[in-house]
Structures are given as C-alpha cells and as structure tokens.
C-alpha cells in the first residue's frame, strides 16, 4: 500500500487580496499528526494563505490538497465536513449568540448528541471561565475568553486538521501562555495543526516544523528547533542581534 498523502499540501498556491498578489506561489506540507507553524511579519501573506485554503479568498493559481484530494476553491463548509476546522483571525465568535450556542455551532456537522454533550463538558473543563458564562452572549467576553471560546468551538467538530490564525494576537501574556498550552495539548491528542503566528519564538518552540513567509513567498523551512537557532531568523523575528 502506498504511503498516505500528507493531510494538507499547498502546491504553488497563489492568492490575491485586494488586487495585490499576497501569496505568490507557495509550497507547504502538513503531515498527519504534525504541528507546523507558518511565521512571518505582519502583511507577509500568512492569513491570506489560510483564506485561500478555506475558500474565503479565491485562489488565483496552484492547488490545495486535503487528504490527497484536490479541494482548491471548495467552499469552507465542505472542508469542515471532511474534518478541517479553523480558528479565524480576530477569533470570529458569534457575539450575539450565547457561549453554549457558539459551541453548538462548532458541532454543527455532528449529530451524536451524547458525544456533543460530552465534548461541551470537556471544553468547559478545559476553560472553566466559559462554563461560568455559558448562557451569556459571547460579545460580553474579554478578548482572551473569546479566543478560548473560538478554540473550544473549533474543537467541537472533532477536527483532523486545525488551522489557527494568530491565536495570540492582542492577548495578555498569561492568556497567550494558556492558548499555547492548549495548542500543545490538542496536538498531543493527535490533531494535526497548522499554526499561523507573528510570535515566532513561541510558535517555533511548540512546533515540529516551521515555514517562514516574507512578502508572499516562503523563504525558509525546516525543523522548528533548527529555525529557532538560525541566525537569520533570530535577527529578523526573535529580536536577537545577529
């Protein structure tokens, strides 16, 4: 039997954003069970890459393969039904819906009520703050709590592949730590993760492999540990003098 294809593979992916080609033909692979990060400065095209993957932004060239199958340009909901989940940039919780309703939407594709209830309890155990406020609207939560909710909601679909878009953005250091602890825990459970981050140091510390993106192209790729010690990366992203 042939080896199983990587869970996510981008081949020469090009995505335009506002008339500008923000992603200029990148290759990126996320293997099963891997935690891969895509780091780079603000505006490098990281988020646009994810938008291209989930069909939120039209792809202008190249291929997105999910589980070996060409899914380029497919609407997001179809990918979600195949096991992909995403925590979007800016969290994207439904502010007028209660926390419970947000979680219910995370489990929209499932119909096993007992399993869903179990997962809600698990999410509440992981994030006790959410349990306290289960009937409040998500708009009343703090930024960090919304990030927790967005993560918990994404996990409700029991995804195989989790895409995280800047989960640490705008959060207090303590919250950032909590978010990354969660990322590691989810990864250990066997969920494949593609993590987009501006906080390069933290991202590389938790990841298996990393990609560095600069103005729409991948400039470096490799083992996360190696990237962490790469002098160019240290100078450009980790704030350490070369």
């Amino acid at each position, binding site marked *: 039997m042939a080896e199983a294809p990587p869970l996510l593979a981008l081949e020469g992916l090009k995505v335009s954003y506002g008339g500008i080609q923000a992603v200029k033909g990148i290759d990126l692979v996320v293997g099963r069970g891997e935690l891969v990060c895509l780091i780079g400065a603000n505006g490098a095209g990281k988020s646009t890459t994810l938008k291209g993957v989930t069909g939120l932004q039209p792809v202008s060239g190249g291929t997105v393969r999910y589980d070996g199958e060409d899914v380029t340009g497919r609407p997001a*909901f179809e990918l979600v039904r195949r096991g992909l989940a995403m925590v979007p940039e800016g969290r994207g919780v439904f502010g007028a819906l209660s926390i419970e309703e947000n979680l219910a939407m*995370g489990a929209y594709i499932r119909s096993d009520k007992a399993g869903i209830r179990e997962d809600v309890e698990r999410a509440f155990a992981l994030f006790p703050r959410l349990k306290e406020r289960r009937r409040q609207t998500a*708009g009343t939560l703090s930024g960090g709590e919304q990030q927790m909710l967005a993560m918990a909601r994404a996990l409700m*679909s029991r995804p195989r592949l989790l895409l995280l878009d800047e989960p640490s953005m705008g959060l207090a250091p303590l919250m950032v730590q909590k978010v990354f602890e969660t990322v590691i825990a989810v990864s250990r459970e066997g969920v494949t993760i593609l993590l987009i981050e501006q906080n390069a140091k933290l991202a590389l510390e938790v990841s298996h492999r990393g990609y560095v993106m600069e103005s729409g192209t991948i400039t470096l790729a490799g083992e996360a540990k190696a990237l962490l010690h790469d002098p160019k990366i240290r100078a450009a992203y980790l704030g350490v003098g070369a």
Partner: protein
Amino acid sequence: MDIFLQQIVNGLTLGCVYAVVALGYTMVYGIIQLINFAHGEVVMIGAMTAYSVIVALTGAQVPLPPVAIVLVGALVAMPVCMGVGYALERTAYRPLRGAPRLAPLITAIGLSIILQHLAMIVWTRNPLSYPQIIRQVPIHLTGNPDGATITNVQIAIIVASVMMMGALLALVYRTKLGIAMRAVAQNPSIAGLMGIDINRVIALTFVIGAALGAVAGVMVGSYYGIAHYQMGALLGLKAFSAAVLGGIGNLAGAMLGGLLLGVIEALGAGYVGELTNLCRLSGWFDALAQRCASDPNVTLFGSNYQDVFAFIVLILVLVFRPSGLLGERVADRA
C-alpha cells in the same frame, strides 16, 4: 367606549396579520440585509391559491366542514408559496448576493411586478370574492347588545397568528437550524467555517417566511372576503412599515410593530372622522354653521384614509427612531 373596544379588536386582528407578514420581511433582512419587496406578492399568491382550492372544493361539494376546506386551502397555499419563495431566492437574489445593495432591491421591485402580472394572468384582473364558507359569528364583549363584538374568524386569526409566531420563535431560538440562521446573519463566512451550508440556510429563511406569508394571505382573504392580484402590494408595504417600526431584522420587533400598526390603523380609521369634524368650528364660521345645521357630519377625512396611518407611522419612525422600537443594539455585534 364601545367604538374604542371594537377598534382595538379589529386592530389586533389586522395587526396579527401584519405581524406574520412582517416576520417574512424581517427574517430575510436579518440574514442578508435585503428588503424582499416581492414578499407581499407571495402573500397574495397564498390568498389566490387557497381561493382556487376553496372554490374547487365547495364547487365539487366535497363533504368537508367549512373550516376543514379553508384549512386544506391553506395547506395547499403553503407549499406553493414556499416554492415561489425558494425560486425567488435561488434564481434572482442569490446571483446578486455580492452585488451593490441597490441591485437586489430593484430586482425585488421587479419581481413584485412580475408576480402580480403572473397572478393577473392566472386569476384575472377582477377582484375575486372569497367564498364566505365560514359563517362569521359575532360574540359580544360587553353587556350592550349594540356594543363591541369579536367574531369567530377574528379569534381564529389571532390564535393561528400567535401559534405561528410562537413556533417561529421556538425554531429560531431553540433549534440547531435557528442558531445557524442567527449565526449566518451575524457572520456568513465564519458560519461557513462551522460547516454550515450558508446558501441552504438562506434559502430556508425565504421558504419559512413564505410559508408564514401563505397563511397570512388565507387569513386576509377570509377576513375581508376578497382577493385581488394587487392585494399584496399595499399589504406588503404596510407589513414592511410594521417591520421597520419594530426594528427591521428583529423578530420580536416585527411582531410588536405589526400589532401596534394594526391597532393604530384601526383607531385612526375609527376616530379620524370625529376628529376632523369641521362642525366643531361652526361657532367661528357662519357658513359652516349653516351647513352643519342640515348635516352635523361635515368631516375633512373619513375612515377611507385608514391606509395613511401606516405610512405616517413609517415616516415618524424613520425620522425619530430609524432603528425602530426594538432595533438592534450595536453593542451586541462582536
């Protein structure tokens, strides 16, 4: 006092119908920010379809009680209207989803004209007299034998409307589909990331609104005893005003707006003659005093001005509280 009570009863009946129709406007607006001006025509098609069914059944002397015949009419009208609602969304509005907002608005007006004329071809341009197979039985509300009454048909309209509104609220706030509808209304692309097929949810919103509209059409036809291919235009515009009064996009608002508008209209119609009776001024004008001696009811406006009140309300709301009575609080949006 009896006139007041009677007009309240009439107003609530009418208001229930407005509320049910207004829900169709407000649901669609809430989810895709489109004012579906063709919704009034969907209501008209509901009334017309039920009319044909009722006429056919009574003509064939089907041994069914009158109430059952009207019910069958409504049950046929519902899927017909749901089909029309779906077709409108699928063929006209969906292709324009990303277009500037003026495009779907003009399309809606165009569709409304198209539907009117299709209905004219099918049901002729003449007013159709709705078979009054359910005998209207007045029930006295006070001891006064000439006083205010409520009829069995009015009670049926109020009960059916309240039941439909309750069912809709339960659907939107208690079911997974309802949560999905609210999620799509808030943020369609994030809803897609939950695995929600946005197009399906939007289409269902149209279909549910159309089903409510169908029943409203049957109620209007049975209440006034008349149906006409243009009946949806004014009714739709009034229901739209009701939705704006309550705060468009807000379900409870549409219900409140509908009821208020119905009552305002009924009271307006009941009192406009009395309030604009020029004979009150006859002490000041000799000519007027002479006329009023022979006819004490020289009024400026009569109850035929009842249609004006809905639009006066619409204008006042737009000027003084554009977000409507229960309009969305912006802070709720994350």
